């Protein structure tokens, strides 16, 4: 995914070299932004706390709900907290790593993407690292707190396998959200306002995944499973972990398709990105 679109390097070695180059450049640019962020420490702390608080409000809403009811769609508070934490963690990680990609549209429109194409690094890495926002650790830490709390309260026997499953969920979920960020960015090569659509899938999707699938209409759940397969971020694996039946009644092995779905989405996103970049036409001045 770190390779340049439509500008095929020679074979597999080229891919590997481009990936290494991309990671290197990503690291450089991220370090630079982190350093300049930390130069204004007070402002950074305020931003991070603000980010944390904004996300925490979501969870406060859930807590308030549970002060009046015992279960939501048949799910207890720790169970909902588990969904909330896993989804928030995945989105938070993807947001931290790739969240700046929604600025691509502006770069395409005003032609400043030209400059990135002059540097000896894949454009994807440069766009992803641009304005790396450390404050997004706020969302991640908040999600981790909620997840940690839910894990201690759930009546689940935490075997090594189950713990690994949670880790795998977070990784696949991050990849799935990352693929959505990337696909959204690729669309900005044609429609520079596509960032809004992409945000509705990422941040909007997260708002959905925080709640149990049982509270939503079946058609919506189907859409989130088959069309934009966000359900693989946490719903399907979490249902298995919590020993809940799947509202769509899908066969059990579907729950384990997360890694395959994530890989497929990343491949699709990479293709879209390459195609979009190939069509980049700069501006007249």
């Amino acid at each position, binding site marked *: 995914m770190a390779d340049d679109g439509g500008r095929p390097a020679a074979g597999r070695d080229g891919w590997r070299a481009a990936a290494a180059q991309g990671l290197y450049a990503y690291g450089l640019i991220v370090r*630079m932004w982190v350093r300049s962020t930390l130069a204004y420490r007070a402002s950074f702390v305020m931003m991070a706390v603000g980010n944390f608080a904004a996300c925490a409000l979501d969870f406060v809403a859930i807590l308030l709900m549970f002060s009046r009811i015992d279960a939501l769609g048949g799910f207890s508070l720790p169970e909902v907290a588990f969904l909330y934490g896993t989804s928030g963690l995945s989105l938070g990680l993807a947001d931290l790593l790739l969240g700046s990609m929604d600025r691509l549209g502006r770069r395409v429109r005003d032609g400043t993407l030209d400059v990135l194409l*002059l540097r000896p690094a894949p454009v994807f890495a440069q766009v992803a690292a641009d304005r790396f926002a450390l404050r997004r650790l706020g969302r991640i830490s908040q999600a981790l707190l909620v997840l940690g709390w839910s894990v201690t309260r759930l009546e689940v026997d935490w075997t090594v396998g189950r713990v690994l499953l949670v880790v795998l969920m977070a990784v696949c979920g991050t990849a799935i959200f990352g693929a959505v960020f990337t696909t959204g960015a690729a669309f900005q090569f044609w429609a520079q306002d596509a960032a809004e659509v992409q945000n509705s899938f990422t941040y909007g999707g997260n708002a959905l995944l925080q709640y149990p699938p049982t509270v939503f209409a079946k058609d919506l759940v189907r859409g989130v499973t088959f069309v934009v397969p966000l359900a693989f971020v946490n719903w399907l694996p979490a249902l298995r972990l919590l020993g809940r039946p799947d509202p769509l009644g899908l066969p059990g092995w579907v729950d384990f398709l997360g890694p395959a779905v994530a890989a497929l989405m990343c491949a699709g996103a990479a293709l879209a990105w390459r195609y979009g970049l190939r069509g980049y036409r700069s501006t007249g001045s």
Partner: protein
Amino acid sequence: MTDPAGTDPEPLIDVRGLEKVFTVRRKAGRLRRVREEVRAVDGITFQVPRGEMVGYIGPNGAGKSTTIKMLTGILVPSGGRLRIAGIDPARERTRLARRIGVVFGQRTTLWWDLPLADSYELVRRMYRIPDAVYRANLARCVELLDLAPLLAVPVRQLSLGQRMRGDIAAALLHDPEVLYLDEPTIGLDVISKAKVREFVREVNAERGTTVLLTTHDLTDIEQLCRRVMVIDHGRLVYDGALDGLRAAADGERTLVVDLERELPPIDGVPGARTVRVEGPRQWLVFPAAQSAAPLVTAVAERYPLVDLSLREPDVESLIAELYARGATGTEPGRRTPDGQGAPA
């Protein structure tokens, strides 16, 4: 057209039949939108040998920037063949990037929010420039471009001229083999312009850096380049020595004669015509390719001649002449409706 580099076994820049066609949508009527093709670069061919400094000029919208964007890998050509040091820019953009330096007068390649020094540091790491090379190059640029007081200033706070100097330095830190300069003197005052020209000349002389320079200030060209390429409507209309422009442009020279007294306009001198009369002084123009001697003889034979002087056409008016010629005839065919004149 001349092709001074045609015999070079391996020119550093090798462009053959290069094309770029933009498809644009234009409103036609209230709802209808028609697709149109803009042939920004329409089949140009040239070679530049290592170490040469070439001026690339043409009127607004001629296709200069589009050419440079293809040479650097920013744009993928619609047709033709392109090699820089044997590298195809569209296929191996990042490999090429290490070997070229680019300055866009209109746009900075520096990091907007970073102090100049930090931008350079990032360039050093990204291009993996060896420490010794980096230090030497930076010291040189800082000295020759007067950057010392600017190093701690964020790029967004630099004035245009300061930023331009900062950009030029950034483009040269990694010892590029080719330097593309797209309007590097735009908006600069005379002193800054002179400084930039001097610096480019030195880089070319000392490092043997090949330079392709785009500008609307012909003084840049006159002071830096012996070879000039003129592009108009996406086509090369001239490629050769700067001196050769005169012949190519059918420029006219002017003979200014002072007669003994006021007389009617000089008439009947073959090849020349009188364009202005002011008292005893008269102005005659004749084709630049023609020799002045027979003309002077012819005038002296029939008129009481006191003094005379000869004026060469300046480059400015020659270029204007070339541009004007290009504008007639080619314009209607340039924007073709979709379907016709499809890209190769």
